[in-house]
């Protein structure tokens, strides 16, 4: 009785390994392109992720926070009628003190944001006036570091203003100048507040420099008659990857005000859609470019493996004459491709991660700006430090591994099929 045909897995594996070793130069050349491609793909992803993380960090510090809590209509109306009661801030503080907030949340800030007019003896300009807690803001916002004259607000300031350089120029202000802020109060009356310039900042972002004024939140609350209510609560987390988790957590903890229609919780992606769209677009462009690179690498693998197959017709014929089926003969080529792909994928990704680790202090790309004297770069209204710290996103790394393995498998498939469809008798004909 004939035994059940065997799959000959061990033999196929042995032949595949021997063939890779036999054609060492070809193996090394193919492997090198795959390893370099993998390392490039991995590092460029961690570098992009670092750039994006920095953009998000910069954006959320001056903007909404990683997670924003606001009154439902505020994002559209920008009016103080759409504000949060002071009790919501207490709820948020309590929520972030419990897990998982306690582990992931680094800071909570709050602001009173109103649109109004800034008036000096010279003229008037529209302004975005932010009532802030000077101590919290100094710790979080990069704005206090961008002072060009004077100083940032301090805890005991009352009638002080920290003004953007563009607005200072437009209103012909200087340190110590007085200006009047005017905005609609809770009674829908126009209310004015006299303040004095204590500091001037320049971010390089026209939108901020020409309109933003920071004043102490207590002063703003009194001026507009809203007490300890706020318009924005921002929650900062240790990594933007934790945002969805914290949004869900705060959503649960603030269930009551949310149900009453007093508050909404949103991630920075929703709060800053322009920044989010830009990052998503940038990621896709990156993937597209590297995808094209890998298609090229894939074709080079197809070419290399196919050339090897074409030169090994006799060998495949012998294998079939000796008892391998066409499918098992294909498997020899497929396993060769898979072995090479799997090993090179892990080496390539490992190399990319090693470069990422080596640059954990950051990669200074300011040299790319040439002779331009630029401290930071502005992208969609946020500033990006030229020292980029690469960030490893495990999900993206898994995607890269999957993508590279997919390219390797697909590239090996066609040559493998060719190896299984040879004419055995033709392949073994003696050639003089």
């Amino acid at each position, binding site marked *: 009785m004939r035994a059940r*045909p065997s799959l000959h897995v061990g033999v196929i594996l042995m032949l595949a390994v021997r063939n890779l070793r036999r054609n060492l130069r070809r193996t090394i050349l193919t492997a090198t392109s795959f390893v370099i491609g993998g390392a490039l793909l991995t590092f460029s992803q961690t570098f992009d992720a670092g750039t994006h993380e920095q953009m998000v960090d910069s954006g959320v510090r001056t903007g909404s926070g990683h997670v924003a809590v606001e009154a439902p209509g505020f994002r559209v109306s920008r009016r103080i009628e759409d504000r949060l009661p002071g009790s919501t801030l207490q709820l948020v503080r309590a929520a972030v003190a419990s897990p998982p907030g306690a582990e992931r949340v680094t800071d909570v800030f709050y602001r009173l944001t109103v649109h109004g007019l800034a008036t000096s003896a010279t003229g008037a300009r529209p302004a975005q006036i932010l009532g802030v807690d000077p101590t919290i803001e100094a710790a979080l916002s990069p704005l206090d570091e961008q002072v060009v004259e004077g100083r940032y607000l301090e805890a005991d300031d009352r009638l002080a203003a920290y003004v953007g350089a563009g607005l200072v120029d437009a209103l012909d202000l200087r340190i110590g100048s007085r200006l009047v802020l005017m905005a609609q109060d809770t009674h829908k009356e126009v209310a004015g507040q006299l303040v004095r310039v204590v500091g001037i900042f320049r971010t390089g972002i026209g939108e901020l420099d020409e309109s933003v004024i920071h004043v102490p939140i207590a002063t703003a609350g009194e001026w507009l008659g809203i007490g300890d209510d706020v318009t924005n609560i921002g929650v900062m987390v240790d990594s933007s990857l934790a945002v969805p988790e914290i949004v869900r957590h705060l959503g649960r903890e603030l269930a009551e005000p949310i149900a009453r229609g007093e508050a909404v919780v949103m991630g920075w992606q929703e709060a800053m859609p322009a920044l989010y769209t830009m990052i998503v677009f940038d990621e896709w462009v990156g993937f597209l470019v590297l995808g094209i690179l890998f298609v090229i690498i894939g074709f080079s693998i197809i070419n290399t493996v196919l050339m090897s197959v074409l030169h090994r017709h006799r060998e495949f014929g012998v294998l079939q004459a*000796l008892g*391998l089926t*066409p499918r098992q003969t294909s498997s020899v080529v497929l396993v060769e491709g898979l072995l090479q792909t799997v090993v090179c994928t892990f080496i390539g990704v490992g190399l990319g991660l090693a470069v990422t680790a080596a640059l954990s202090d950051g990669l200074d790309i300011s040299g790319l700006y040439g002779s331009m004297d630029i401290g930071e770069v502005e992208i969609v209204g946020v500033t990006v430090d030229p020292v980029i710290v690469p960030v490893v996103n495990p999900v993206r790394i898994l995607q890269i591994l999957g993508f590279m393995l997919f390219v390797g498998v697909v590239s090996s498939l066609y040559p493998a099929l060719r190896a299984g469809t040879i004419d*055995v*008798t033709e392949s073994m004909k*003696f050639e003089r």
Partner: protein
Amino acid sequence: MSESNGYAVRTAGVWKIFQQEAEEVQAVRDVSLTIGRGEFTALAGPSGSGKTTLLNLIGGLTRPTRGEIWVAGSELGALSNRELAQLRLEQVGFVFQAYNLLPVLTALENAEFPMLLQGVPAAERSERIRELFDRTGMTGLEDRRPGKLSGGQQQRVAVVRAVASQPALVLADEPTANLDSHASEALLDMMAELNRELGVTFVFATHDGHVMERSRRLVRMVDGAIDSDETRS
């Protein structure tokens, strides 16, 4: 599959027709032949007479256009490709004109390759190869790759590979064509000894007069058909 009836090979009205562009080439024409177990048979004839094609048909490397072929009791036309591969593995050994050893394997690994596929235990493989290498004067060359062996040595490894798995039949296509007369004589001696002592059935396709002289049955082919079939004592 049926039981073997005392023959190693039987063909009945076998035709193999190739289509070459618009032309039909009858490579094998109506061949009916029975080769008994333990025979030492040569298929002789000029180039293009169809002897290699007949050998390939018997070995299940290609399928006939018409007719039936039985090898060790199995009718090849009834077998799937997978079963045909299994039959080649278990019942047929091949020796080729160009040796066709696997270049990535050593002499020993080449020789034991079919047994590896058959799942023969390592100790038994080793014993069989040691004995055959000893018989064929290959002892000491086990670890050499094909590229480091002479033509005669490579062909001896190929013969060991063909017989080591204990097939019902060894098909040898012009086994001496690339060898000098001395190596050719030594190879024939070796195959004759294996035939005599182990009872291995050999079928050669050849136009080497020396091989024809040494064979005990000579089947001459002309234009794809059997022209004569002569058995010697």
